Protein backbone atom coordinates (compact mmCIF):
# COMPACT_ATOMS: atom_id res chain seq x y z
CA UNK A 1 0.00 0.00 0.00
CA UNK A 2 2.68 2.45 1.16
CA UNK A 3 4.95 1.28 -1.67
CA UNK A 4 2.64 2.55 -4.35
CA UNK A 5 1.42 5.72 -2.71
CA UNK A 6 4.79 7.38 -2.08
CA UNK A 7 7.22 9.06 -4.46
CA UNK A 8 10.02 6.88 -5.82
CA UNK A 9 13.07 8.84 -6.93
CA UNK A 10 16.58 8.22 -8.27
CA UNK A 11 17.64 10.18 -5.20
CA UNK A 12 17.44 7.55 -2.44
CA UNK A 13 16.83 10.25 0.18
CA UNK A 14 13.61 11.27 -1.53
CA UNK A 15 12.44 7.67 -1.69
CA UNK A 16 13.22 7.20 2.01
CA UNK A 17 11.23 10.31 2.95
CA UNK A 18 7.92 8.56 2.10
CA UNK A 19 6.41 11.60 0.41
CA UNK A 20 2.82 10.91 -0.69
CA UNK A 21 2.37 10.86 -4.47
CA UNK A 22 -0.56 13.25 -4.27
CA UNK A 23 1.82 15.79 -2.73
CA UNK A 24 -0.35 16.34 0.33
CA UNK A 25 1.98 16.72 3.31
CA UNK A 26 0.39 16.84 6.71
CA UNK A 27 2.25 19.93 7.82
CA UNK A 28 0.30 22.75 9.40
CA UNK A 29 2.11 26.06 8.92
CA UNK A 30 1.03 28.86 11.24
CA UNK A 31 1.85 32.56 10.79
CA UNK A 32 4.43 32.68 13.59
CA UNK A 33 6.27 29.61 12.30
CA UNK A 34 8.20 31.93 10.05
CA UNK A 35 11.26 33.43 11.72
CA UNK A 36 12.00 37.13 11.47
CA UNK A 37 14.65 38.47 9.15
CA UNK A 38 18.06 39.84 10.01
CA UNK A 39 20.30 42.03 7.89
CA UNK A 40 23.90 40.92 7.54
CA UNK A 41 26.96 43.17 7.27
CA UNK A 42 30.43 41.81 6.76
CA UNK A 43 33.89 43.30 7.06
CA UNK A 44 36.56 42.11 4.68
CA UNK A 45 39.50 43.60 6.49
CA UNK A 46 40.03 44.95 10.00
CA UNK A 47 39.43 48.70 9.89
CA UNK A 48 37.24 48.54 6.77
CA UNK A 49 33.60 49.63 6.82
CA UNK A 50 31.12 46.82 7.30
CA UNK A 51 29.07 46.44 4.17
CA UNK A 52 25.58 45.06 3.76
CA UNK A 53 25.61 41.68 2.05
CA UNK A 54 22.05 40.44 2.41
CA UNK A 55 19.41 39.16 4.79
CA UNK A 56 18.34 35.85 6.32
CA UNK A 57 15.82 34.18 8.64
CA UNK A 58 16.68 33.49 12.27
CA UNK A 59 14.90 33.32 15.64
CA UNK A 60 17.52 35.37 17.53
CA UNK A 61 20.80 37.25 16.96
CA UNK A 62 22.95 34.29 18.00
CA UNK A 63 21.42 32.04 15.39
CA UNK A 64 21.41 34.85 12.86
CA UNK A 65 25.16 34.91 13.23
CA UNK A 66 25.37 31.12 12.77
CA UNK A 67 23.45 31.37 9.53
CA UNK A 68 25.24 34.52 8.35
CA UNK A 69 28.63 32.90 8.65
CA UNK A 70 27.76 30.12 6.23
CA UNK A 71 25.48 32.22 4.02
CA UNK A 72 27.73 35.20 3.49
CA UNK A 73 31.24 34.39 4.69
CA UNK A 74 31.73 30.89 3.38
CA UNK A 75 33.70 32.05 0.40
CA UNK A 76 35.89 35.12 0.12
CA UNK A 77 37.56 37.12 2.81
CA UNK A 78 35.77 38.11 6.03
CA UNK A 79 37.07 39.05 9.46
CA UNK A 80 33.91 40.21 11.19
CA UNK A 81 30.12 40.05 10.89
CA UNK A 82 27.28 42.24 12.18
CA UNK A 83 23.70 41.04 12.26
CA UNK A 84 20.82 43.45 12.86
CA UNK A 85 17.13 42.69 13.17
CA UNK A 86 15.53 44.09 10.01
CA UNK A 87 12.72 45.59 12.07
CA UNK A 88 15.28 47.51 14.17
CA UNK A 89 16.42 49.48 11.17
CA UNK A 90 14.71 52.83 10.77
CA UNK A 91 14.26 53.58 7.14
CA UNK A 92 12.77 56.36 5.03
CA UNK A 93 10.05 55.80 2.48
CA UNK A 94 10.72 55.70 -1.21
CA UNK A 95 7.92 58.26 -1.64
CA UNK A 96 10.26 60.73 0.06
CA UNK A 97 13.04 59.97 -2.38
CA UNK A 98 12.81 63.50 -3.73
CA UNK A 99 14.31 64.95 -0.57
CA UNK A 100 17.68 63.49 -1.50
CA UNK A 101 17.93 65.27 -4.82
CA UNK A 102 20.12 68.35 -5.06
CA UNK A 103 19.15 71.08 -7.46
CA UNK A 104 21.52 71.60 -10.37
CA UNK A 105 22.25 75.19 -9.44
CA UNK A 106 24.02 74.18 -6.25
CA UNK A 107 26.94 72.29 -7.74
CA UNK A 108 29.29 74.24 -5.46
CA UNK A 109 28.01 72.05 -2.61
CA UNK A 110 29.41 68.93 -4.21
CA UNK A 111 33.02 67.89 -4.11
CA UNK A 112 33.04 67.56 -7.87
CA UNK A 113 31.85 71.14 -8.15
CA UNK A 114 35.13 72.66 -7.07
CA UNK A 115 37.13 74.00 -9.97
CA UNK A 116 40.51 72.86 -8.77
CA UNK A 117 41.03 69.76 -10.88
CA UNK A 118 42.75 71.78 -13.62
CA UNK A 119 45.31 73.05 -11.16
CA UNK A 120 45.82 69.63 -9.59
CA UNK A 121 46.33 67.99 -12.96
CA UNK A 122 48.78 70.72 -13.98
CA UNK A 123 50.77 70.20 -10.78
CA UNK A 124 50.82 66.43 -11.27
CA UNK A 125 52.03 66.79 -14.84
CA UNK A 126 54.86 69.10 -13.81
CA UNK A 127 55.81 66.88 -10.90
CA UNK A 128 56.04 63.88 -13.19
CA UNK A 129 58.28 65.76 -15.59
CA UNK A 130 60.62 66.65 -12.76
CA UNK A 131 60.74 63.03 -11.62
CA UNK A 132 61.57 61.94 -15.15
CA UNK A 133 64.43 64.45 -15.39
CA UNK A 134 65.92 63.14 -12.18
Amino acid at each position, binding site marked *: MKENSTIKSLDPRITR*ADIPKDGQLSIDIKPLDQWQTYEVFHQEKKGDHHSHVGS*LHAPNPEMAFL*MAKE*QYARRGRCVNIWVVKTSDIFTTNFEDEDMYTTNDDKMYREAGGYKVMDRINKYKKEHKKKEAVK
Partner: protein
Amino acid sequence: MSSEKNFGLSEEQTKAVKNLILRMADDELIIGHRNSEWTGLGPILEEDIAFSSMAQDKLGHAQALYNILHTMGEPDADTIAFTRNEKNFYCCHLVEYPIGDYDFSIMRHFLFDTAEAVRFDMLTRSSFQPLANLAKKMRGELKYHTMHANIWINQLGKGTDESHIRMQKALDECFPLALGIFEPSDYENVLSESGIFDGEKLLQSVWMDITAEVMEKSNLKLPDLDSVTPSYGGRKGFHTEHLQPLLDEMTEVYATDPTAEW
Protein backbone atom coordinates in the same frame (compact mmCIF):
# COMPACT_ATOMS: atom_id res chain seq x y z
CA MET B 1 60.16 0.96 3.63
CA SER B 2 62.28 4.07 3.87
CA SER B 3 62.49 5.88 7.19
CA GLU B 4 61.24 9.04 5.51
CA LYS B 5 57.94 7.42 4.68
CA ASN B 6 57.58 6.41 8.30
CA PHE B 7 58.45 9.79 9.74
CA GLY B 8 61.01 8.17 12.02
CA LEU B 9 58.43 5.92 13.68
CA SER B 10 59.05 2.35 14.77
CA GLU B 11 57.04 -0.42 13.15
CA GLU B 12 54.70 -0.60 16.12
CA GLN B 13 54.27 3.17 16.23
CA THR B 14 53.53 3.23 12.51
CA LYS B 15 50.78 0.65 12.97
CA ALA B 16 49.38 2.65 15.88
CA VAL B 17 49.37 5.95 13.95
CA LYS B 18 47.78 4.37 10.89
CA ASN B 19 45.07 2.80 13.03
CA LEU B 20 44.40 6.10 14.80
CA ILE B 21 44.17 8.04 11.54
CA LEU B 22 41.95 5.44 9.90
CA ARG B 23 39.53 5.51 12.85
CA MET B 24 39.35 9.29 12.70
CA ALA B 25 39.09 9.47 8.91
CA ASP B 26 36.35 6.82 8.71
CA ASP B 27 34.34 8.72 11.34
CA GLU B 28 34.69 11.91 9.30
CA LEU B 29 33.80 10.25 6.01
CA ILE B 30 30.69 8.53 7.34
CA ILE B 31 29.34 11.45 9.40
CA GLY B 32 30.06 13.74 6.45
CA HIS B 33 28.14 11.48 4.12
CA ARG B 34 25.28 11.07 6.59
CA ASN B 35 24.94 14.79 7.28
CA SER B 36 25.05 15.57 3.57
CA GLU B 37 21.81 13.59 3.29
CA TRP B 38 20.13 16.71 4.71
CA THR B 39 21.18 18.78 1.70
CA GLY B 40 18.04 20.11 0.10
CA LEU B 41 15.88 18.64 2.88
CA GLY B 42 17.01 20.78 5.82
CA PRO B 43 14.49 22.45 8.14
CA ILE B 44 14.99 25.92 6.64
CA LEU B 45 17.09 27.16 3.75
CA GLU B 46 19.71 28.91 5.88
CA GLU B 47 20.26 25.90 8.12
CA ASP B 48 20.25 23.57 5.14
CA ILE B 49 23.18 25.51 3.70
CA ALA B 50 25.05 25.74 7.02
CA PHE B 51 24.65 22.03 7.81
CA SER B 52 25.57 20.98 4.26
CA SER B 53 28.62 23.18 4.32
CA MET B 54 29.79 21.54 7.55
CA ALA B 55 29.13 18.09 6.09
CA GLN B 56 31.42 19.06 3.25
CA ASP B 57 34.03 20.18 5.77
CA LYS B 58 33.89 16.70 7.33
CA LEU B 59 34.60 15.09 3.97
CA GLY B 60 37.53 17.49 3.66
CA HIS B 61 38.81 16.33 7.05
CA ALA B 62 38.50 12.71 5.93
CA GLN B 63 40.40 13.43 2.75
CA ALA B 64 43.20 15.25 4.60
CA LEU B 65 43.55 12.28 6.97
CA TYR B 66 43.52 9.69 4.17
CA ASN B 67 46.15 11.81 2.43
CA ILE B 68 48.44 11.46 5.45
CA LEU B 69 48.00 7.68 5.19
CA HIS B 70 48.90 7.93 1.52
CA THR B 71 52.20 9.62 2.39
CA MET B 72 52.84 6.65 4.70
CA GLY B 73 52.61 4.22 1.79
CA GLU B 74 48.88 3.44 1.80
CA PRO B 75 46.71 3.76 -1.37
CA ASP B 76 45.32 7.17 -2.36
CA ALA B 77 42.35 8.75 -0.59
CA ASP B 78 39.66 7.62 -3.06
CA THR B 79 40.85 4.04 -3.04
CA ILE B 80 40.88 3.91 0.76
CA ALA B 81 37.49 5.61 1.00
CA PHE B 82 35.60 3.73 -1.69
CA THR B 83 36.99 0.21 -1.97
CA ARG B 84 36.69 -1.28 1.50
CA ASN B 85 33.76 -3.25 2.87
CA GLU B 86 32.37 -2.71 6.36
CA LYS B 87 34.71 -5.20 8.06
CA ASN B 88 37.61 -2.94 7.13
CA PHE B 89 35.96 0.26 8.31
CA TYR B 90 36.82 1.52 11.79
CA CYS B 91 34.20 4.20 12.37
CA CYS B 92 32.13 4.25 15.56
CA HIS B 93 28.44 3.27 15.55
CA LEU B 94 27.26 6.82 16.26
CA VAL B 95 28.10 8.02 12.75
CA GLU B 96 26.47 5.06 11.00
CA TYR B 97 22.88 5.65 12.06
CA PRO B 98 20.42 7.09 9.54
CA ILE B 99 19.78 10.82 9.90
CA GLY B 100 16.40 10.32 11.60
CA ASP B 101 14.64 13.54 12.53
CA TYR B 102 16.52 16.80 12.93
CA ASP B 103 16.68 16.40 16.72
CA PHE B 104 18.69 13.19 16.31
CA SER B 105 21.00 14.69 13.68
CA ILE B 106 21.66 17.84 15.72
CA MET B 107 22.33 15.85 18.89
CA ARG B 108 24.71 13.54 17.03
CA HIS B 109 26.37 16.60 15.48
CA PHE B 110 26.94 18.05 18.95
CA LEU B 111 28.24 14.85 20.56
CA PHE B 112 30.48 13.98 17.63
CA ASP B 113 31.85 17.42 16.94
CA THR B 114 32.62 18.10 20.59
CA ALA B 115 34.72 14.92 20.68
CA GLU B 116 36.27 15.78 17.33
CA ALA B 117 37.26 19.26 18.48
CA VAL B 118 38.79 17.97 21.73
CA ARG B 119 40.64 15.21 19.87
CA PHE B 120 42.14 17.62 17.35
CA ASP B 121 43.00 20.05 20.13
CA MET B 122 44.95 17.25 21.84
CA LEU B 123 46.60 16.43 18.53
CA THR B 124 47.92 19.99 18.07
CA ARG B 125 50.52 18.85 20.63
CA SER B 126 51.21 15.51 18.92
CA SER B 127 54.78 14.39 18.33
CA PHE B 128 53.61 13.13 14.94
CA GLN B 129 54.01 16.32 12.91
CA PRO B 130 51.58 15.65 10.00
CA LEU B 131 48.72 15.23 12.50
CA ALA B 132 49.81 18.20 14.61
CA ASN B 133 49.94 20.41 11.52
CA LEU B 134 46.53 19.29 10.30
CA ALA B 135 45.04 19.79 13.75
CA LYS B 136 46.27 23.37 13.87
CA LYS B 137 44.87 24.05 10.42
CA MET B 138 41.42 22.75 11.38
CA ARG B 139 41.05 24.80 14.53
CA GLY B 140 38.96 27.63 13.03
CA GLU B 141 36.61 25.31 11.20
CA LEU B 142 35.97 23.22 14.29
CA LYS B 143 35.37 26.34 16.35
CA TYR B 144 32.43 27.16 14.10
CA HIS B 145 31.16 23.56 14.04
CA THR B 146 31.03 23.32 17.82
CA MET B 147 29.54 26.80 18.14
CA HIS B 148 26.82 25.80 15.69
CA ALA B 149 26.13 22.63 17.68
CA ASN B 150 26.14 24.36 21.08
CA ILE B 151 23.72 27.09 20.00
CA TRP B 152 21.28 24.62 18.46
CA ILE B 153 21.33 22.34 21.51
CA ASN B 154 20.66 25.33 23.73
CA GLN B 155 17.94 26.70 21.45
CA LEU B 156 16.04 23.42 21.19
CA GLY B 157 16.73 22.20 24.73
CA LYS B 158 15.14 25.35 26.13
CA GLY B 159 12.67 25.90 23.29
CA THR B 160 9.14 24.54 23.43
CA ASP B 161 7.91 21.52 25.39
CA GLU B 162 8.03 19.50 22.20
CA SER B 163 11.56 20.51 21.28
CA HIS B 164 12.76 19.84 24.82
CA ILE B 165 11.21 16.36 24.91
CA ARG B 166 12.61 15.56 21.49
CA MET B 167 16.12 16.69 22.40
CA GLN B 168 16.10 14.72 25.66
CA LYS B 169 15.01 11.61 23.75
CA ALA B 170 17.72 12.21 21.15
CA LEU B 171 20.32 12.59 23.90
CA ASP B 172 19.23 9.36 25.61
CA GLU B 173 19.41 7.58 22.26
CA CYS B 174 22.75 9.02 21.16
CA PHE B 175 24.64 8.85 24.44
CA PRO B 176 25.60 5.14 24.44
CA LEU B 177 26.45 5.42 20.75
CA ALA B 178 28.62 8.47 21.40
CA LEU B 179 30.54 6.61 24.11
CA GLY B 180 31.55 4.25 21.32
CA ILE B 181 33.70 7.07 19.91
CA PHE B 182 36.10 6.38 22.78
CA GLU B 183 36.38 2.61 22.37
CA PRO B 184 40.02 1.95 23.27
CA SER B 185 42.28 0.64 20.53
CA ASP B 186 45.04 -1.95 20.87
CA TYR B 187 47.56 0.87 20.64
CA GLU B 188 46.60 3.18 23.53
CA ASN B 189 49.92 2.68 25.33
CA VAL B 190 52.09 3.02 22.24
CA LEU B 191 50.31 6.22 21.25
CA SER B 192 50.55 7.92 24.63
CA GLU B 193 54.10 6.75 25.43
CA SER B 194 55.41 8.14 22.17
CA GLY B 195 53.55 11.43 22.63
CA ILE B 196 51.45 10.88 19.52
CA PHE B 197 48.05 10.94 21.19
CA ASP B 198 47.10 11.06 24.86
CA GLY B 199 44.42 8.42 24.50
CA GLU B 200 40.68 7.82 24.33
CA LYS B 201 40.26 7.77 28.10
CA LEU B 202 41.47 11.34 28.57
CA LEU B 203 39.52 12.43 25.51
CA GLN B 204 36.33 10.95 26.94
CA SER B 205 36.74 12.67 30.30
CA VAL B 206 37.27 16.11 28.72
CA TRP B 207 34.32 15.44 26.39
CA MET B 208 32.14 14.46 29.36
CA ASP B 209 32.91 17.73 31.16
CA ILE B 210 32.05 19.89 28.16
CA THR B 211 28.97 17.86 27.29
CA ALA B 212 27.68 17.96 30.86
CA GLU B 213 28.09 21.73 30.96
CA VAL B 214 26.28 22.37 27.68
CA MET B 215 23.46 19.97 28.56
CA GLU B 216 22.96 21.56 31.95
CA LYS B 217 22.74 25.02 30.37
CA SER B 218 20.21 23.62 27.90
CA ASN B 219 17.99 22.02 30.58
CA LEU B 220 18.85 18.55 29.32
CA LYS B 221 19.77 15.65 31.55
CA LEU B 222 22.88 13.69 30.69
CA PRO B 223 22.31 9.94 31.28
CA ASP B 224 24.27 8.44 34.15
CA LEU B 225 27.52 7.03 32.79
CA ASP B 226 27.14 3.88 34.90
CA SER B 227 23.64 3.19 33.64
CA VAL B 228 24.53 2.79 29.97
CA THR B 229 26.58 0.33 27.95
CA PRO B 230 28.87 2.00 25.44
CA SER B 231 28.25 0.89 21.87
CA TYR B 232 31.65 -0.67 21.18
CA GLY B 233 32.77 -2.72 18.17
CA GLY B 234 33.05 -0.14 15.42
CA ARG B 235 36.76 0.40 16.02
CA LYS B 236 37.34 -3.33 15.46
CA GLY B 237 35.26 -3.61 12.30
CA PHE B 238 31.98 -4.74 13.88
CA HIS B 239 29.20 -2.46 12.75
CA THR B 240 25.49 -1.84 12.92
CA GLU B 241 23.19 -2.95 10.13
CA HIS B 242 23.24 0.62 8.82
CA LEU B 243 26.84 0.85 7.61
CA GLN B 244 26.99 -1.56 4.67
CA PRO B 245 23.89 -0.11 2.90
CA LEU B 246 25.43 3.34 3.35
CA LEU B 247 28.72 2.16 1.84
CA ASP B 248 26.85 0.59 -1.08
CA GLU B 249 25.01 3.83 -1.72
CA MET B 250 28.13 5.96 -1.28
CA THR B 251 30.24 3.90 -3.66
CA GLU B 252 27.53 3.25 -6.25
CA VAL B 253 28.87 5.77 -8.76
CA TYR B 254 32.53 5.05 -8.05
CA ALA B 255 31.96 1.33 -8.52
CA THR B 256 30.56 1.79 -12.04
CA ASP B 257 34.11 2.64 -13.16
CA PRO B 258 36.82 2.85 -10.50
CA THR B 259 39.44 3.97 -13.05
CA ALA B 260 37.44 6.94 -14.37
CA GLU B 261 38.98 10.41 -14.05
CA TRP B 262 36.55 12.84 -12.41
